[in-house]
């Protein structure tokens, strides 16, 4: 079953949902919600280049600067229709890439004559797609479902950089993904942010300097997973109480350390060193505002409770994931600056998904919520462009729909100052498409990450440029 589920299409995963009730909690269809933004996207007030300052960078990743994967020369993409995301569409435009960064975008660009030219005549050029909710490349180690509170689980420890699903998503135009813990636990593990540089080594795929996110969940999954073992929590009351208890313990832990540090500072040599506790340390990081909180959440009442608990303990919610009922309380979500990462139209697979509607994104957007479309699926991550196209038919303007798979998910992950639009200074993560990307039949021809081509559909074999068979 575990292995089967890897190849099961989305639909089958859904129909297999009930089966999860009898078998151990494999992948309770990870779902998480998220919140709104300071400068919410709205059709009346588009958000041109509002790159919020991202929160605290992951200490680990800054200590450990990623290797530059290639020494790039200069590259020019010439002749395509460029969808910049932040400053409109440029017909027959060009992009100059220098050292992996976008150095110029416009009708014409100045570039050295030695630059490699990619002819994009007749093609469409857009930023790499960003999937803010994925569980690929974790070798099925998605849920440490042995306790409802596991904030010290690091998804990086399970990251399987050779997973072909990274390639499959790349071939669908995805360049960055947030790989999250599953939704079995009220407080799950800490995510890893990757770039889809398939074929390179593990550390080359880690998004350098990306902030650390942590996954929370709520609702049916935790209560089902623990409830069927007759453990706490088996209700939503239990869910939230387990969470509050954890934060109370984390506060005490922080106080112990504060007391100890104060004593040491005063020169007290007999001060007893408190025990280092990974779990409480991770929760303390939530309370210290060091982690972006990504919450799997469906129901309107639960968004409100989650935001109230966040307020009570003094942390911020970055985004509600899934968030199928966001449209019911969108104004409140917007007021809290929380974003949502949702599907365009997935619904009805469980009771808390029963009121999901395909107008969730458009209503939430109109009420000022920053909306991202995500996959939560090894299938859908390959065609998020189609998902964005679908949302147009449900009323989202085309430029906002594009933002929902680029800049908005970048904000959720906290890397919107680096990726998500075609702006000077940003990473040259770019998809070149054979037709208007937000369509049923559009295919990505080439994908560049940091200015280097990683996927080229015209190549024989897998279409990969950095991958060797048998690697």
């Amino acid at each position: 079953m575990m292995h089967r589920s890897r190849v099961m299409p989305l639909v089958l995963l859904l129909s297999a949902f009930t089966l999860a009730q009898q078998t151990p909690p494999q992948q309770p269809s990870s779902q998480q919600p998220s919140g709104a933004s300071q400068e919410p996207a709205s059709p009346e007030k588009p958000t041109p280049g509002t790159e919020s300052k991202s929160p605290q960078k992951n200490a680990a990743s800054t200590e450990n600067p990623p290797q530059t994967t290639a020494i790039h020369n200069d590259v020019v993409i010439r002749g395509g229709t460029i969808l910049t995301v932040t400053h409109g569409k440029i017909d027959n435009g060009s992009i100059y890439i220098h050292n992996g960064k976008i150095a110029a975008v416009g009708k014409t660009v100045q570039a050295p004559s030695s630059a490699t030219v990619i002819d994009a005549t007749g093609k469409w050029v857009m930023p790499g797609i960003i999937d803010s909710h994925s569980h690929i490349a974790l070798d099925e180690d998605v849920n440490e479902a042995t306790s409802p509170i596991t904030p010290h689980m690091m998804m990086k420890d399970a990251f399987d950089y050779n997973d072909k699903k990274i390639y499959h998503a790349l071939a669908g135009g995805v360049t960055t993904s947030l790989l999250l813990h599953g939704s079995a636990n009220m407080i799950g593990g800490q995510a890893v942010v990757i770039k889809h540089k398939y074929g390179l080594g593990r550390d080359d795929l880690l998004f350098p300097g990306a902030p650390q996110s942590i996954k929370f969940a709520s609702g049916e999954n935790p209560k089902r997973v623990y409830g069927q073992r007759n453990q706490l929590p088996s209700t939503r009351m239990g869910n939230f109480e387990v969470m509050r208890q954890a934060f109370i313990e984390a506060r005490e832990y922080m106080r112990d350390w504060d007391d100890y540090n104060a004593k040491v500072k005063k020169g007290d040599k007999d001060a007893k060193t408190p025990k280092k506790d990974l779990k409480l340390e991770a929760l303390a990081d939530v309370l210290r505002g060091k982690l972006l909180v990504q919450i799997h959440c469906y129901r309107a009442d639960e968004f409100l409770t989650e935001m109230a608990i966040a307020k009570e303990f003094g942390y911020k919610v970055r985004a509600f994931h899934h968030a199928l009922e966001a449209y019911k309380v969108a104004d409140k979500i917007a007021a809290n600056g929380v974003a949502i990462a949702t599907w365009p139209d997935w619904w009805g697979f469980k009771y808390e998904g029963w009121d999901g509607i395909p107008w969730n994104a458009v209503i939430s957007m109109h009420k000022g919520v920053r909306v991202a479309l995500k996959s939560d699926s090894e299938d859908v991550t390959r065609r998020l462009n189609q998902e964005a196209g679908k949302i147009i038919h449900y009323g989202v303007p085309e430029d906002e729909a594009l933002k929902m798979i680029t800049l908005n998910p970048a904000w959720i992950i906290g890397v919107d100052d680096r990726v998500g639009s075609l702006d000077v200074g940003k990473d040259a993560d770019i998809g070149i498409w054979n037709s208007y990307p937000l369509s049923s039949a559009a295919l990505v021809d080439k994908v560049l990450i940091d200015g280097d081509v990683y996927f080229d559909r015209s190549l024989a074999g897998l279409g990969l440029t950095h991958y060797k068979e048998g690697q």
Partner: protein
Amino acid sequence: MLRKIFVVLALIAASLAQTAKKSNPASETTNATIVLRGGKLLTITHGVIENGVLVMQNGKIAAVGPATSVSVPHDARVIDVTGMTVYPGLIDSETHLGLTEISADQMTNDLVETSDEIMPHMHVYDAFHGETALIPVARINGITNAIVAPASQDTLPGQDAFIQLDGRSAEEMLMVRDVAMPLNFTGRQRRNEGPFQTHKFPSTRMGMAAQLRQAFLDAQDYEQKIAAYEKKKSSGGDEKDKDKEKGGSTPPKRDLKLEALLPYLHGQKPVVLAADEPNDLLTAVDLANEFHLKIILNHLAHSASLLDKVAATGFPVIVGAIYAQPKETERYDAVFKLPAEMAKRGIKIAFASYDAHNVRNLPYAAGYAVGFGLPYDEAIKAITLNPAQMWGVADRLGSLDTGKLANVVVANGDPLDVKTDVKHVFINGAEIPLVSKQTELRDRYWK
């Protein structure tokens, strides 16, 4: 006495009237003549008509053609569809509509009977819930007809129904009962994995094949016994002694399971044979041929290597499973391009959503296949005329032709594109309100 006869006659008349009503579903709503004028008509059978006119009368398409050649009846309601695309209602060749409401809530599921692997006597029509909230969600995106199949955990999970996505009752919506029988041979039917970690027979493909073969043999044997009994009965029982071995003088015990297999063993109805891997496909097709079954293939996600052979058989294929993952060694588009590869070889294909809640997304799978090389005309045929032919309803559905049921969709663009919005849906010539559980929630909260 006379009075008694009168009462009987009256009863007969009443029941006849009822029958007539039944056979003409939604008759009350289809009397009005509706004309769609000015649209681009995708007729499927006779090309595209720009600036066309389509007349719907008494639930049927009464006329279709260029505006210059079709006259508009004077009492008709005329809808100006200039700039719009008009096409036949879409047909989804495998759904679970009416068999589930909330997937995770077992009490709302009637998907498959897993107590045994051979369950051909399970009839979808016995469970089909016509009032499901999922049907309006599907039809307002232009899906007007669908196969409802049991889920695939059994080798023979039951018999499909072909439905119309409108009607006042389940009875009206069930257009063809027992239209086909799924035969699943993907390995998932083995009772040794997933939910079936029971290690009961059959836990291997050998077991599945043997069990299936035995079931067909039992059905043949059952039929012979019945035939022998009938023969004996009609010949007056003189040959009692001679026929003793074949069944004696008492009728064989009626066996619904074996009885259900007979129309399929006679090739009267199609068996929908699902396999993904080449080895499974060969095993299952060999077995089906052994019993001379009429075959429609299903899935074939990883059987690209056998497509020439498939083409040679002439079997049509439901190829909706294009979102299945490629195998470890395959190129990313190995499954996406299957429909194109099949069409290239002349294989008749149809798409299916294999879904219930998101049946509405059926045309996008066809559109995606176009991206990977499927000719556009083949793609649209694969959700209209091809399935109508495969399910034996092409006399009534699948194209914009005079005399067919007026299942017609009007949209503001290419039916296969994700951005397109459906503006009108007609089923049996009656306009379907573009309302669902979801639009009601939208309207309540979008203020």
